[in-house]
């Protein structure tokens, strides 16, 4: 039911281009642009919904109603907010490093947008089915640290600079367990292609064989997206808004957009690497594969929000100590145990 909706649309557009007599190269190029823009447009619009969801979830956790004035049950609140942000003046501080300050919000969305290209949204629904998909995703997302730092540095504001220093310290420290945790799954599957990793989970999801890796990945993922309890980067009570202190209007909106897309990417990676991607649980294949993918991704986004509004922020030294003394050794141990386990399973002929 509806399994092939998107694949049919794609093949219809391709056939239409063929009937116009477009050469193969041009056809491929146009298809690639259409797929990429579809993904980017979907994800950007999705952020509007995610912000509303965040505010509603937060409100219910805190026994409030949340936004409930604009539109039915407040559903149009975020759209009103977006219009406000677009029409707001973009201020550039007089002492700012102007080029760097303006460049940061312009390019901050590039790494997440690049990363989304390799995501398999459903069975055979990756925009680019890349051989080194997982590694590519990790590589391009690692660039966002530098861009956050550019914004923080360009502002020429002491709170922004402290925030920028924290961005580098936190994101670099937690990238290590993040990558090492995924290594366990990659050792078992022997591939970096995301679609193949999902296929490898047809019998058993990797959450059951790699529970520790999932836990490490999830915690490091919260830290990479700078969300509570690891939101020291933008700790409002200490450093106002960290790197975004001087940004207003659309500049600030771009950073927020990136934050929500990063949360989505971490949720997508949790789904693909540990929860079977588009595969249906209990063989419930009467719903299409992309439905299951989005269902799982939204469950993870909800989990992120739940954690954000439940736990208090931890201290900076606790953050560093936890990252380097707990998560990194645990992820190394996980690789070691996985390696031994693979040999044991092979020896007993599983």
């Amino acid at each position, binding site marked *: 039911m509806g399994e092939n909706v998107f694949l049919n649309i794609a093949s219809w557009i391709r056939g239409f281009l063929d009937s116009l007599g477009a050469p193969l190269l041009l056809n491929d190029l146009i298809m690639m642009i259409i797929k990429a823009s579809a993904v980017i447009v979907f994800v950007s619009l999705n952020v509007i919904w995610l912000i509303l969801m965040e505010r509603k979830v937060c409100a219910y956790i805190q026994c409030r109603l949340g936004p409930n004035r604009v539109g039915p049950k407040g559903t149009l609140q975020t759209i009103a907010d977006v219009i406000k942000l677009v029409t707001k003046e973009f201020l550039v501080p007089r002492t700012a490093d102007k080029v760097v300050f303006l460049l940061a919000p312009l390019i901050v969305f590039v790494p997440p947008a690049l990363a989304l290209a390799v995501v398999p949204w459903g069975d055979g629904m990756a925009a680019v089915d890349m051989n080194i998909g997982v*590694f*590519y995703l990790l590589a391009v997302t*690692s*660039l966002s640290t*530098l861009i956050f730092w550019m914004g923080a*540095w360009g502002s020429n504001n002491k709170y922004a600079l402290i925030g920028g220093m924290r961005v*580098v*310290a936190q994101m*670099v420290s937690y990238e290590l367990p993040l990558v090492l945790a995924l290594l366990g799954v990659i050792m078992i599957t022997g591939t*970096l292609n995301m679609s193949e990793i999902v296929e490898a989970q047809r019998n058993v999801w990797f959450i059951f064989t790699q529970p520790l890796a999932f836990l490490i990945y999830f915690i490091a993922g919260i830290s990479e997206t700078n969300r509570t309890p690891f939101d020291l980067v933008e700790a409002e009570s200490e450093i106002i808004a960290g790197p975004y202190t001087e940004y207003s209007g659309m500049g600030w909106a771009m950073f927020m957009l990136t934050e929500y897309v990063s949360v989505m990417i971490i949720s997508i990676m949790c789904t693909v690497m540990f929860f079977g991607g588009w595969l249906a649980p209990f063989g419930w294949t009467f719903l299409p594969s992309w439905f299951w993918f989005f269902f799982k991704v939204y469950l993870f986004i909800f989990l992120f929000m739940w954690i954000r509004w439940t736990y208090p922020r931890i201290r900076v030294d606790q953050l560093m100590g936890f990252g380097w003394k707990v998560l990194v050794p645990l992820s190394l141990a996980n690789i070691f145990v996985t390696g031994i386990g693979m040999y044991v399973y092979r020896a007993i002929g599983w």
Partner: protein
Amino acid sequence: MIDLIGQEIIDAFLNNFWSVGAFYTLALVIVVSGLLVVLMKNIVHSVLWLAVCFIGMAGLFLTLDADFLAAVQVLVYAGAVCIMVVLAIMVIRRADMKLSNPFNTQVYAAAGVVALVLAVCTFLAARTQWLVSRARVPENTVEPIATLLLSKYVIPFEVVAVLLLVALIGALLIAREVKADADTDAGQAD
């Protein structure tokens, strides 16, 4: 028949056109950004241009179909630039960032060294017999690299690993010593 051959030539030209064009564009980006790393007065701008340079290098790997190496270039080099920039700021500590990447006046000595390096590079490049491989690039480059690293080149690989470990322990040791000094300084001040 003639049309077919003509088509082949056009195709070959087009393929070459794109790859040659990509090479020269990337080379221009790399050289210009590399120059700007040296010429910028503000060290933060220098390091940001370094990131551009590294990403250009990754692009060069991509034109050679070495996608894994390109990703390594982005992850290890461009991703680690931000650590460098932070270190630069912590070490330099100038009130005016325009003075953070100063030039000196030893033009003649510098010109001599540069000319020497250039001469050695040119000499070596001219003497080397460049092997041009006609073999197709394998579809999946990760596994061959891993196999080579852990079989034929396992000893250099391990030596590099030990070297990095030594550097890591050395850095820790230096950091600890500084801390002990700071304590004694504070003690003397009391």
